């Protein structure tokens, strides 16, 4: 799985994908266990356009949106790794891809060094794919005993804010990676991939209609356990009430970017509803769309975590707050 190439040979790959997508889905979706025999996948799309250099407020400090997103993505990748850690072993519970879009006209895979151009990394490879590590001294009190340790924080993503916003290119690349990934999972009861797009800007390479077409195609991809979940995190400059998992487009006001991202996003599976309501303090309702807008960064973390099915969400959020 780890040597996936995004452009499979056209005829055989197309047939394999068609075959995979023709398999009937289970009656109850999103119920597959994430296990070593059946890993799932995560694809992060990171807006690295010029506007990500604008300031935002994050954890009591002013920093650029790009810095805030880098911290959050790094923390989430670390959390994914921690979920894979069993005893002294790192298990292959998922494959992770990181796509950046900014600067040039096309999106790029963001792994670097020996992992450059590799679309997906396994958790064991992710450990080795850091660009650097930061160290902090941490004091914990465990049952009245104070324990001091030097804690390392691995860094995979550095803040980048540069020029254009080729979001369509990023969606197309994600689609291509997922198609290849899904071909290898045909017929397996695999928890479907999760795509998380983090953006503040206006796409410079497509109209809204073209982006919606890309989103539709991604959301139509599926395993027998369910469709790919496409979630969007909108970093707006606007102040005001944060919108999390809206039920209706009217909840988003008039911001055309927020409304576009709403239309791009998957409706969250019913099996997530109770967790979403509990974690975010939202009302119980019958519809939650997988996006947030005008949100602070803490809500962003919680949002990303919801899309990570092997995590114990409550523990993670509590843990993140303690350590942040």
């Amino acid at each position, binding site marked *: 799985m780890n040597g996936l190439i995004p452009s499979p040979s056209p005829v055989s790959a197309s047939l394999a994908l068609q075959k995979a997508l023709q398999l009937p889905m289970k009656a109850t979706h999103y119920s597959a266990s994430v296990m070593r025999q059946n890993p799932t996948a995560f694809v992060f799309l990171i807006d690295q356009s010029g506007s990500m250099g604008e300031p935002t407020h994050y954890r009591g400090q002013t920093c650029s949106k790009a810095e805030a997103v880098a911290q959050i993505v790094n923390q989430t990748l670390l959390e994914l790794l*921690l979920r894979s*850690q069993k005893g002294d072993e790192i298990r292959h519970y998922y494959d992770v891809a990181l796509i950046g879009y900014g600067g040039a006209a096309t999106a790029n895979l963001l792994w670097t060094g020996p992992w450059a151009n590799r679309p997906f990394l396994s958790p064991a490879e992710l450990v080795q794919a850091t660009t650097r590590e930061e160290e902090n001294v941490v004091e914990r009190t465990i049952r009245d005993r104070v324990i001091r340790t030097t804690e390392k924080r691995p860094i995979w993503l550095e803040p980048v804010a540069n020029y254009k916003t080729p979001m369509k290119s990023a969606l197309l690349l994600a689609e291509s990676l997922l198609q290849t990934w899904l071909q290898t999972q045909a017929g397996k009861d695999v928890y479907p991939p999760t795509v998380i797009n983090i953006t503040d800007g206006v796409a410079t390479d497509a109209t809204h209609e073209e982006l919606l077409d890309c989103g539709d195609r991604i959301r139509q991809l599926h395993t027998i356990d369910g469709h790919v979940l496409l979630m969007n995190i909108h970093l707006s400059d606007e102040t005001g009430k944060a919108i999390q998992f809206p039920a209706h487009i009217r909840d988003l006001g008039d911001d055309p970017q927020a409304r576009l991202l709403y239309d791009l996003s998957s409706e969250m599976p*019913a099996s997530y509803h109770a967790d979403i309501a509990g974690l975010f303090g939202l009302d119980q309702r019958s519809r939650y769309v997988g996006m947030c807008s005008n949100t602070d960064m803490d809500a962003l973390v919680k949002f990303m975590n919801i899309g990570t099915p092997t995590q114990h969400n409550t523990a993670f959020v509590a843990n993140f707050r303690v350590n942040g």
Partner: protein
Amino acid sequence: MRTYAQTIGKEAPAYPDNEDAYRVVSQNGIWCVADGAGGTGLYAGQWARFLVEQVPSEPFEDFSTLAHWLDCRWATFFSEFQPQAATHYLTERKFMDEGSGATLATLHQGTDTLHWMLYGDAVILCFNVLSGRMRVARPGLTQFETAPYLLNWNSAPQPGGFSGGQWTHLPGNTYALLSDTLGQFVLMAHDALTSNTTDLNRLAQTPTALGQRAARHRHFWNRNHQSFNQSVWRPLQNSLVSIDTFASYTQHLRTQNLLGADDYTAVLIAP
């Protein structure tokens, strides 16, 4: 009383890992099962094995007895595994942040009674094969809908996770300690076969893997209606004669979608 017990990991035979543990001391009348929580912290299997080895000869009378017992023992486990965790920043971080978690179920034989104690969502049952009556230490399927309470070395237990009690031993009584998912199977099958389906019906409406299994039980036992003893209890007991028969039995239940994917442990005590 004779004890039948087996444990097997969820990914067997592909992987040998098993985070459940049990301990039987028949001559002293002690039976216990711990279910290590792989989703929490590190070394769940080792923690489960540590807990069952540490279970005292006297029953846990109340919550404070359990809390005091854990308070006196956690540091031994921590001291043993902290250096191992510290060999890599990831393991150290996870171990220190999340600890190690497990549920615990114990049964202690008294003169005419059996004392039971539960922390978390393991299942302890008393089934009388003569009367067909089943008693459950903590009844109800709804307990499986939320994350279980776990005994963890890094934090004190919570009173809400504790249940304790005793059963008078009667002729025909058999007892079982089951890890959660196998316990769910037995409770769902029992509810379906005894038409006690309020919980089962409600659960079957929920869009989760647990709800899916509840729906499957409702349908399956409606078409395969025999006594609980005949169709569930006796086959379970028979499966415990060897690891192979237990593996075959649980795999059969899995293929029928009656049993979720998990480590499985059963300790069954019968005349």
